[in-house]
C-alpha cells in the first residue's frame, strides 16, 4: 500500500488543498497541505515527502522558486505543478527545472490520482499499481467486461453501459469508470462527465436497499419534508449516504410521478405512498429492522372528522 508515501500539497487557496487532499487520501496516501512556498519549505525541512504538488502563483514565494529550492535541497522529491492558465513560457521554465508534470485547473479527482501514480512511478517509488478492490469479485468484473463488449458495438451507448455497470457493481467508483472508458474506447473524462451529470449515477457504494424520497410538488405540498427528516433521524445518515451496516441508502428524487398518493418514497423499485413519518419507518422495518417509535396510547373520546 501507499502507507510510507507522503505527499505535500502547496497552494494559497485552502479550498484547493482540501480538494487535492480529498482525492489523494481516498487513494490511501498520507497527504499534508501548506499555504504557500515558505510554509512548504518549513515542512520539508522537518519531513520527508515523496512528492510535492504545487500551485504556481502564490504570494511571498511562487511555485517556480519553491521548485528551484526543492531541486537543490531535496533532489529525491518529485514535483508536479498544478496551475490555472500557465503561459507557455512558465511551463517551459518549469520543465527546465525538472518538474514531472503539470495539471491544469480545474481537474477531476481521476486526473489528479492518475498524475500522482505516474509521478511516483517515475520517482521509482514502490507504489503498487491500483488493483481492483476486494469488493469487486472476478465474476462481477467478467460480467461487466462482457456487458461493455456488447455496448461497444452500438454508438452512443455510454449511458446504457453505465446503467448496466451500476446494476452489476452497485456504484461507479473511478476504477470502474476507467474500466468502462477503456472498454468503450472513449476517454475517462467523458465517462466521468456523464456520471457526474446524471442524478441516477452514484460514485458512492449503495446499501442493500435504496430509498428514494420524492421531492415533487405534490409531495412537498403534502409534507414530504417531515418524512425525510424522520428517515434521516432513524437511519442516522444524510441524503446521499449509506447506513453503517450497508442496509439502506437514502437519496432524493425530483418526482416519482405518483403524485396522487403523495407523499411518496420508493424503496428499491416499489413506490410507497400516502406516507406519514411513522408509516415510513414501519415500511423500512419490512426490509430491515431500523427500530420503531413507540406509538402513543390511543386516547378515548376523540371524534375523528369524517369527510
Amino acid at each position, binding site marked *: 500500500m501507499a502507507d510510507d508515501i507522503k505527499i505535500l500539497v502547496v497552494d494559497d487557496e485552502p479550498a484547493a488543498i482540501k480538494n487535492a487532499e480529498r482525492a489523494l487520501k481516498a487513494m490511501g496516501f498520507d497527504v499534508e497541505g501548506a499555504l504557500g512556498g515558505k510554509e512548504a519549505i518549513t515542512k520539508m525541512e522537518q519531513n520527508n515527502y515523496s512528492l510535492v504538488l504545487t500551485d504556481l502563483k502564490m504570494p511571498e514565494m511562487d511555485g517556480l522558486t519553491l521548485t528551484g529550492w526543492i531541486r537543490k535541497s531535496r533532489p529525491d522529491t518529485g514535483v508536479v505543478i498544478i496551475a490555472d492558465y500557465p503561459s507557455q513560457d512558465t511551463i517551459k521554465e518549469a520543465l527546465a527545472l525538472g518538474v514531472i508534470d503539470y495539471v491544469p485547473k480545474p481537474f477531476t479527482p481521476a486526473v489528479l490520482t492518475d498524475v500522482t501514480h505516474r509521478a511516483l512511478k517515475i520517482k521509482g517509488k514502490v507504489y503498487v499499481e491500483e488493483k481492483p478492490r476486494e469488493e469487486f469479485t472476478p465474476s462481477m468484473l467478467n460480467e461487466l467486461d462482457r456487458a461493455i463488449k456488447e455496448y461497444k458495438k452500438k*454508438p452512443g451507448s455510454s449511458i446504457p453501459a453505465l446503467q448496466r455497470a451500476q446494476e452489476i457493481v452497485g456504484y461507479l467508483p473511478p476504477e470502474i469508470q476507467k474500466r468502462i472508458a477503456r472498454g468503450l474506447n472513449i476517454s475517462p473524462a467523458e465517462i466521468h462527465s456523464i456520471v457526474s451529470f*446524471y442524478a*441516477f449515477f452514484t460514485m458512492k457504494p449503495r446499501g442493500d436497499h435504496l430509498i428514494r424520497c420524492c421531492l415533487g410538488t405534490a409531495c412537498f405540498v*403534502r409534507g414530504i419534508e417531515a418524512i425525510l427528516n424522520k428517515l434521516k433521524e432513524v437511519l442516522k445518515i444524510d441524503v446521499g449516504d449509506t447506513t453503517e451496516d450497508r442496509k439502506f441508502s437514502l437519496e432524493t428524487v*425530483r418526482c416519482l410521478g405518483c*403524485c396522487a398518493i403523495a407523499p411518496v418514497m420508493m424503496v428499491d*423499485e416499489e413506490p*410507497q405512498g*400516502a406516507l406519514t413519518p411513522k408509516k415510513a419507518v414501519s415500511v423500512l422495518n419490512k426490509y430491515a429492522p431500523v427500530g420503531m417509535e413507540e406509538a402513543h396510547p390511543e386516547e378515548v373520546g376523540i371524534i375523528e372528522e369524517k369527510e
Partner: protein
Amino acid sequence: MQRLTIEDLKNIKEKHKATFALREGGYRAKVTVHMGTCGITVGAKDVMDALINEVKKNGLKDVTVGSAGCAGLCGREPIVTIEEIGKETIKYCDMNAEKMRKIVVAHLIEGKPVEDYALPHQKDLPFYNLQELRVLQNIWFMDPESLEEYIARDGYQAAAKALTQMTQEEIIKVVKDSGLRGRGGAGFPTGLKWEFASKVQSEVKFMLCNGDEGDPGAFMDRSVMEADPHSVIGGMIIGAKAIGAHQGYIYVRAEYPLAVKRLQIAIKQCYEAGLLGKNIFDSGFDFDLEIYQGAGAFVCGEETALMRSIEGKRGMPRPRPPFPAHKGLRDKPSVLNNVETLAQIPLIILNGAEWYKSIGTEKSTGTKVFCLAGAIKNVGLIEVPMGIPLRTIVYDIGGGMRGKKKFKAVQMGGPSGGCIPESLLGLPVTYEDIVKSGAIMGSGGMVFMDEDNCMVSVAKFFLGFTTDESCGKCVPCRVGTRILLDILTDICEGRGKEGDIETLEDLCKDIIAASLCGLGMTAPNPVLTTIRYFKDEYEAHIKDKWCVAGVCRDLCTFFIDEKLCKGCLACLRACPSKAIVGEKKKPHRIIQELCVHCRSCYDSCKFKSIKVLPAAAREASEAELLQLAGVATPTGV
C-alpha cells in the same frame, strides 16, 4: 405470433370483441383490477390474489378476471370494476383483500352488490361524467400487456391505414387540419413540425418520443405508457411514415420502472407480430423502435438536451437554430413528440380531423389529460375537452379542497409554470388563456394548494428545483436562479428586506431574456406569478416577519385559542418538543420557550383552535397573545 396482416387485425378484433361482450365469450361477468403504479402501491396485487383465489375456490367458471391501467380516481385505489351482462357496471374503491373476498361472495355468487364499498354510478359522479375520454379511452378497460386486447379496441388500424392507404402529405394534412398541438407544454402544432422534417432531404431521419416526464406533479405520460403502450407505438409508426424515418427511440425516465417494462413487452410483441421491423403490413415501410432510459436529469426533457443524451453525452441543450427538424439526433433530421401527443395520433388518423376538432376551442382543439394532485379531494388522472373552465376542474371534477379547506392556488406547468389564484378560476383551459395568467399549460400537472400553503415557500421550492436541475451551461440560468433562491430563502427565514420584491422582479426579467433554453427562460415564472397574485404574502414575510400559513418556521408563533380548544390531546401528542401542556377536555397551552415551530400541532388540530401569529408574538404575554389572535391581520390584507 406470426406476422399480422390487415386481414388478421380484423379477425382478432372480431374474435376478441366477443370476449368483451361477455356473452359470446361464455362469461357472465368480468372483474378488472386496476393495476397502475398508484393501485399497486396501495395493495392492488393483494386484491388481485384474493380475487383469483376466491374465484377458483368457488369454482366460478363463468367469471373472467383481468387487469387494466389506472382508473383515474387515484386517491381511491385500489379500484375494482365488475361488468355483468345486462347489469350496471359497478366500481368498488378503497379495496383490500378482505373486501374483495366479501364482494366475490356477495356480488358474484349471491348477486347482491356491496353498496358500502361501491362508488356511486359513473353517470352520477361529476368526476367521471364531465370528462371526455380519448387518450384515456383504453386505460380504464384494457390489459396493457395484451396486444390482442389492444387490436380488439381498433388498435393499429390507424397505422395500417396510414401505411397502406395514405401518402406522407395526406398524413401531415390530416394532423395539421386537426389542429393538434404538442402536449408537452409549449403547444407547437404537431402537423407543422412533421411537415418541416418531411421536407428535409436525408437518408436517415429519427422519430423520437419524449417520455422524460420531469415536471413534478405530472404523471399522465407515465399512466399512458404504463396502461396503453401500444397507442404510443402506433402514433410513432404513423409519425415515422409521415416524416420518412426508419428508426425511432422512446426516451423514458429511469424513475418509471413499470412504464419501461410495459413498453418493452409491447415492443417485443410488435416485433413478433411484424408491426415493427421490416415491411410492416407489406407496405414496404420499415421502422425500428428502441427504448432509451434516461438517467435522471430534468433538462433532458428539452429537445436538444434529450437528443444529446441519446447520443450518450451530458444532456445539455444547445442554441437553436439549427432546429432538430434539420439537425437533430446525430445531426440528422429528427422529430420529438410528447407521449400524449403521439397517443392522439392514431385516433386522428382513424376518425379524421373534423372529428378531432369537434371538441375544444378554435385554437386549442381536442382534449387534454391533466393530473390532479396536492390539496384537492379527488386526486387522479382526468381528460377534459379544451376550453373547460378551471373552476369546473377544481370544484366539480376535483371535488374542492380536502378537509373543506379554502382553495388558494393551482400550480400549472411545473417549474416552468405558475400559480393561478381563485380570482382567475374562470379562465378556460386553452394554451392562449393560461399563458395570459403568467402560468403555462405545461404537460398537464395541476398541483392544488390550500390556505395552509405558503406561496413564498412554493416559489422557493421551485427555484430549489431549477437551481438543482440547471445544467450549468449558461450563466443567466446557472447564477441567476441561484440568486433568486438566495433572496427567497432570506425572505422565508426572516432576513427579507425592503426592495427584495423589486430585485426579484428585475432579475426575473433578465433571466427570461438571456437564458439559452426553455429551462432558464421559464424558471422565473413561479416567482413572478406568486408575486403578481400573492404580493401580500411576500410583504407579510418581509415587513411583519409573519408567515400567515405557518410554514416558515422563523416567521410564526403558534397559539392555542382556548375558546376553540376541546382538550382532545391530539396536539399534545403530536408535539415533538413537549411544548404543549394541558389535561384531557381542558384547553391546552403552548410553552413558547420550548416550541420549535414545527407546525405538528397545527396540522393535528381538528378544531382549528391553533392560530398562527407573527414571529414577534413569541415575546408577548398571554393577554397580548389573546388580543393579537383576535385582531391581527398582516400588511396588505
